[in-house]
């Protein structure tokens, strides 16, 4: 076991559980009739939990269409997130954004995007702003493996590299660009090799091993903070559900493959580690679960009971 204190490990575990349970609950609610799309990250939770474990409160993140996990790991409130999925006035975006656009500027969660890849140059700019103002802050850009194909990735990482910006680029590599497996969009077997085009470090980590992710993140974040950024970290993982709620996730991969990955579930894995190493007791773990479930009951209640936005508010927040 690593040199992380028990509290931190339990915190990481709790974060993963929060993400998983939030999304499971969101799926349930979605099936009952929420609007729009949601893209769950089930199976991928170790990456946001591990990366955000060593971010400071005033560090920034920017994420993607599959961003619930990243946002929760950075500390967002589940009730306001849920309310946003319900398209309510109390949602983070007052019902205007939905699942793909949640932000929480109080917690320096600068937003998500429905346009894959776009967050990467934006994160470079956040890094620039931090550096120019000597803010001593780091920004993490989360994105998927498919996003590394985009021009936005190239331009964004390129800019961060030449200006040595404090940006940690975190690729949540679930090995599929929607339905297209890695082997069909790149010759690389290790996406961290993309870093070589920019002369920056590229580090690959088992993205289902929360502790390993956290170790890599801790080191990388500190390097970025010291001016040794940017760094690219690729966590290899797997989404064990469909691309979004409309996708059974069966046309482009085998049941066996999905089952194999379910066995490598990152939450189960950390739980075993916590128990085996006597870092947490069954009871403590159960309490983490129960507390989260209670919080989610509250969150759903909050979302349900919150008012709808007034339709005229559609025209607010537009200045030209």
């Amino acid at each position, binding site marked *: 076991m690593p040199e992380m204190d028990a509290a931190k490990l339990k915190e990481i575990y709790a974060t993963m559980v929060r993400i998983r349970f939030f999304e499971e609950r969101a799926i349930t609610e979605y099936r009952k009739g929420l*609007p*729009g*799309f949601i893209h769950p990250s089930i199976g991928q939770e170790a990456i946001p939990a591990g990366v955000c474990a060593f971010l400071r409160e005033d560090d920034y993140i920017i994420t993607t269409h599959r961003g619930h996990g990243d946002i929760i790991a950075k500390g967002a409130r589940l009730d306001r997130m849920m309310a946003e999925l319900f*398209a309510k006035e109390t949602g983070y*975006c007052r*019902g*205007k*954004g*939905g*699942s*793909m*656009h949640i932000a929480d500027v109080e917690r320096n969660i600068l937003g998500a*995007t*429905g*346009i*894959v*890849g776009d967050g990467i140059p934006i994160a470079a700019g956040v890094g620039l702003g931090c550096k120019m103002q000597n803010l001593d802050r780091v920004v993490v850009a989360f994105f998927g493996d*498919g*996003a590394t*194909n*985009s*021009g*936005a990735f190239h331009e964004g990482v390129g800019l961060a590299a030449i200006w040595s910006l404090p940006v940690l680029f975190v690729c949540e590599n679930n090995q599929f*660009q*929607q*339905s*297209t497996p890695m082997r*069909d*969009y*790149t010759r690389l077997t290790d996406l961290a090799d993309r870093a070589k085009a920019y002369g920056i470090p590229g580090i690959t980590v088992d993205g289902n091993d929360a502790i390993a992710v956290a170790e890599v993140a801790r080191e990388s974040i500190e390097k970025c903070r010291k001016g040794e950024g940017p760094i690219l970290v690729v966590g290899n993982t797997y989404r064990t559900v469909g691309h979004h709620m409309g*996708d059974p996730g069966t*046309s*482009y991969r085998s049941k066996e493959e999905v089952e194999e990955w379910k066995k490598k579930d990152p939450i189960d894995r950390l739980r075993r580690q916590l128990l085996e190493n006597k870092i947490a007791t069954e009871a403590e773990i159960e309490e983490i679960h129960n507390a989260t479930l209670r919080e989610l009951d509250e969150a759903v209640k909050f979302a349900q009971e919150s008012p*709808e*936005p007034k*339709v*005229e*508010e*559609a*025209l607010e927040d*537009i200045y030209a």
Partner: protein
Amino acid sequence: MRELTYREAIREALREEMKRDPKVFLMGEEIAEYGGSYKVTLGLVDEFGHERVRNTPLAEASIAGAALGAALVGMRPVAEIMYIDFSFIAADQIINQIAKLRYMTGGMVKVPVVIRTQGGGGVAAGPHHSQSLEAIYAHIPGLFVVMPSNAYDAKGLLKSSIREDNPVMFIEHKKLYGEACEVPEEEYLIPLGKGEIKRPGKDITVVAYSRCVLRALNAAQDLAKEGIELEVVDPRTLKPLDEDIILSSVQKTGKAMVVYEACRTGGFGAEIAAIISEKAFDYLDAPIKRVAALDSPVPFNPKMEDYVLPNEDNIKAAARELMGK
């Protein structure tokens, strides 16, 4: 006659053209096994294989650019941009290269590229997956812009688009995919640049395209009960625009309304209104009305979305106003 949905009609057009001409092929994100976001291309990979139904990396600029390159050496690509919202990533290739290359080379090359994409709101997909952006492409010389409003038109226009030696933006509407109408088994083509009167009427010319044709037809049905007869004119292609069908309708009715789902300001309906006000001014006996989306991104909340997008009620209200009722 058999009915097909818009989705099926488009798929059938693709299939027929691929069978007819081995140079025709498809490229785009998630179009093979997955069948595309709205399942338009579902099954085509089984029939034509991955050589001709090519999944691409998530890289829209290269989808458009590579389509152009392939066209330059004799292929006839049908490239899909999954949502028109993402087309901005490809817009430089579409606008600066695809649309202009024939011109820039003094006519030396042909550019038989079809960009298939879809737009529009109505599924609570939020600001990045709901835009109506045809005005941007219709402003660019060199691009055909096609926006079919029903399955029959979609099939005939897509087949013509694929046979066209110049680039076509073929813009579908996500809320039309499930709409069905009669589509004959026999082959037919619809020429690009010819509009159609979807409903004749004597009182007001309503120019509408894509999903707004449905909205206009629904409104017309209701208004007929009030004694107001809308003439619903569907240009079907915005570039080239069938000005004649619009102007002769306005000459008949003396009143004009333009309905479009894009943001009101700078939408293509402004162009149509400007044409009418310039070329049919002497026939007009009332201001030209525009019924369009409010100038807003498309919000996620479905009620807000409904509020922002134009609907039957807006059309009816505008019609009554035009009739002085």
